[in-house]
């Protein structure tokens, strides 16, 4: 039988790093608090098919605040794992142990893993592991997950504790102690019959959790008694019940730490972080530096490093295509098959695949930013601005990820603590131009604005951001009236991103992209080739304007006349773009039957004027995202209707903005 082990701890304490070390599997690691947004599972090395480890989202306490905290809590209570590995950041024992005091109440066997021990030791601080063990009465394993130190010890501790029954110390003391025990007597039986951990139930009762009152079927009489007990406790404690409970926990922790944790100074990383932040969150320089960093990343990605690599890729793909076509020709393969391979598959997949280097580079930088801890600073710096449009600094992170890909960005909204903020962020994120749209910009710029590439690029990105801001203000004052949620966020110490983490993340994204190129784009290329090579009587047509696709495209294309491009090929490209944005390029390549870049540029000049080419770009930035992003939207909103409304809104905005730009632009040109 498979035994489940839950990995749980505060945000950013190294759960994912330990998970990777224990399972050997790859998974995304980030240094923005709360980057793990889904439960990920993997088998522990050497215990394949036996011990399954679950990497839960980071939480600070067992009181649900964000939707990912709810995920973790529900998992612990409902799935009842065999063992909890509570991982804590040893540079920050007090706050991390708070969760531990709550986990103790769950009646599940548990081991405590102290991570980041390298940082503790280097700064001359120390922790008395044996003393801690004695006081907390459980196995304690000091490790450095990112340095792979102590991983074996964790596995040994898991093996040792797996089959033991839960034995936990009682941390309660003082006036709260009396109240807890009195209430325990009242609810003991119903908790037992429901198989709920008693102490956890009592805590929830003291916190005034209505759900728990209902769950335990506490009748009116008992409610009165409980209320009386609590009022008496409040009187004696001189504070309210919630504060008294938190205070009891923290004073227990303070007592433990006083005897076991010896802090000489802040850690080296913390001191260094403060110095770095003097610049990065500086009063006047903070924002310009952020903008510079982003511009620099874009410059490296799209120009300095990305462009030559992309040219190289283009050349290799071109040579490969020529070679294949030549081979088919010399072997006397039928014309239609040659056309399928050359004009369909190779042209379609190839045009998209050439963007692999750019995407790899962009994700490399984004995951560096995440892993280093800078993302949390961005949230800190930008919070006030985002608040003006009804969001919080936390929404900024998903939006930045959105420049890479909308799918992980939409998933990252789970770190937001209010439903309202989440929904707004999900709707707005796709306006951040994702990397899959780059091929489209590349295509149009090469054909129409070859000497103004950076300017056009910047304008396009800015239009996306601007529309997001306008939409946010619009939504804030109509559908999403209300206050943005509180913003209480930890700023983790800056850490040098580990190459392994960044590498694993980039590898993941590259695999995804290649997978997409050989599945969705591959299929789409074939379908489009078919539709544009045959007419309704399934005869092969040499002139694609006679084809099925031309008929469909022509039917739709008048809709785009007010935007300046009433051409069946353009409208078809926009439709296929819904499968994946890169398809816009592959479709246009296939439809114009261009065998070379020069020919393609000429063909495009026949479809667009410079102005309508620009409005086409604007429309592609803003209109509904690809199916994968749509699916993510639906999943996160838990509603088909809302997801459909979201993409309708996005497409509506796209149409409106492109319309305005074309009509106004027309007056001047």
């Amino acid at each position: 039988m498979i035994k489940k082990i839950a990995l749980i701890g505060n945000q950013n304490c190294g759960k994912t790093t330990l998970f990777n070390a224990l399972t050997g599997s790859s998974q995304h690691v980030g240094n923005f608090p709360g980057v793990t947004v889904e439960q990920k599972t993997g088998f522990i090395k050497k215990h394949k098919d036996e011990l399954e480890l679950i990497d839960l989202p980071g939480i600070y306490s067992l009181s649900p605040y964000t939707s990912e905290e709810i995920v973790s809590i529900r998992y612990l209570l409902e799935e009842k794992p065999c063992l909890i590995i509570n991982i804590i950041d040893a540079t920050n024992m007090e706050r991390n142990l708070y969760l531990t005091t709550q986990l103790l109440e769950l009646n599940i066997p548990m081991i405590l893993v102290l991570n980041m021990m390298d940082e503790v030791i280097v700064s001359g601080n120390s922790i008395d592991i044996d003393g801690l063990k004695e006081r907390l009465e459980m196995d304690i394993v000091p490790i450095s997950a990112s340095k792979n130190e102590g991983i074996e010890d964790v596995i040994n501790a898991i093996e040792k504790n797996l089959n033991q029954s839960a034995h936990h110390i009682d941390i309660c003391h003082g006036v709260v102690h009396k109240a807890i025990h009195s209430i325990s007597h009242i609810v003991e039986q119903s908790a037992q019959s429901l198989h709920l951990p008693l102490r956890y139930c009592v805590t929830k009762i003291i916190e005034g959790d209505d759900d728990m009152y209902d769950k335990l079927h506490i009748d009116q009489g008992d409610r009165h008694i409980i209320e009386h007990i609590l009022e008496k406790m409040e009187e004696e404690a001189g504070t309210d019940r919630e504060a008294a409970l938190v205070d009891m926990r923290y004073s227990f922790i303070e007592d433990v730490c006083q005897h076991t944790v010896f802090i000489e100074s802040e850690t080296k990383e913390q001191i260094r972080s403060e110095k770095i932040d003097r610049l990065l969150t500086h009063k006047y320089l903070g924002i310009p530096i952020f903008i510079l960093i982003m511009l620099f990343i874009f410059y490296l990605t799209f120009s300095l490093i990305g462009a030559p690599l992309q040219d190289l890729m283009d050349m290799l793909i071109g040579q490969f295509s020529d070679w294949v076509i030549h081979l088919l020709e010399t072997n006397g393969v039928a014309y239609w098959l040659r056309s399928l391979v050359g004009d369909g598959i190779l042209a379609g997949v190839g045009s998209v695949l050439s963007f692999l280097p750019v995407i790899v580079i962009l994700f490399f930088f984004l995951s560096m930013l995440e892993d280093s801890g800078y993302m949390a600073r961005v949230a800190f710096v930008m919070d006030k601005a985002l608040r003006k449009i009804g969001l919080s600094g936390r929404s900024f992170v998903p939006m930045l990820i959105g420049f890479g890909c909308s799918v992980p960005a939409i998933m990252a909204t789970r770190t937001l603590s209010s439903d309202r903020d989440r929904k707004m962020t999900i709707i707005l994120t796709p306006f951040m131009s994702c990397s899959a749209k780059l091929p489209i910009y590349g295509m149009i710029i090469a054909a129409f604005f070859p000497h103004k590439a950076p300017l056009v690029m910047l304008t396009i990105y800015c239009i996306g951001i601007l529309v997001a801001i306008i939409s946010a203000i619009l939504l804030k004052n109509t559908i999403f009236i209300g206050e943005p949620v509180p913003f209480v966020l930890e700023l983790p110490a800056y850490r040098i991103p580990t190459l392994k983490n960044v590498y694993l993340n980039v590898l993941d994204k590259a695999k995804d992209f290649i997978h997409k190129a050989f599945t969705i784009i591959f299929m789409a290329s074939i379908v489009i080739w078919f539709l544009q090579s045959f007419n309704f009587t399934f005869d092969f047509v040499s002139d694609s304007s006679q084809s099925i696709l031309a008929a469909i495209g022509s039917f739709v294309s008048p809709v785009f006349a007010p935007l300046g491009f009433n051409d069946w090929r353009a409208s078809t490209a926009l439709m296929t773009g819904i499968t994946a944005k890169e398809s816009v390029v592959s479709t246009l390549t296939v439809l114009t039957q261009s065998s070379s870049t020069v020919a393609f540029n000429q063909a495009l000049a026949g479809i667009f004027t410079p102005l309508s080419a620009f409005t086409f770009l604007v429309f592609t930035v803003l209109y509904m995202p690809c199916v994968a992003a749509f699916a993510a939207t639906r999943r996160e909103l838990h509603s088909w209707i809302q997801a459909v409304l979201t993409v309708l809104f996005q497409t509506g905005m796209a149409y409106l903005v492109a319309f305005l730009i074309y009509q106004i632009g027309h007056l001047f040109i």
Partner: protein
Amino acid sequence: MTLDQMSPQTLVQIVAVNGKGLLRRRLLEMGLTPHTFVKIRKVAPMGDPIEVYLRSYVLTLRKEDASLIEVKVVEHD
């Protein structure tokens, strides 16, 4: 006095945490409990939120929420 009124580099001790509901509990659970020492470190470029140091870690919160926390000054820098 409340936490939001303190200028950077001031060391304060928490007297009480006001407010209610989830926000208050979150503030308490993040370690902002009465008697805790808190050092104000900086104000964000646009004037909000603020950055504080407590229990060996760095936390950021908005002035609006910080105004719920009553403090007394321990040391002025």
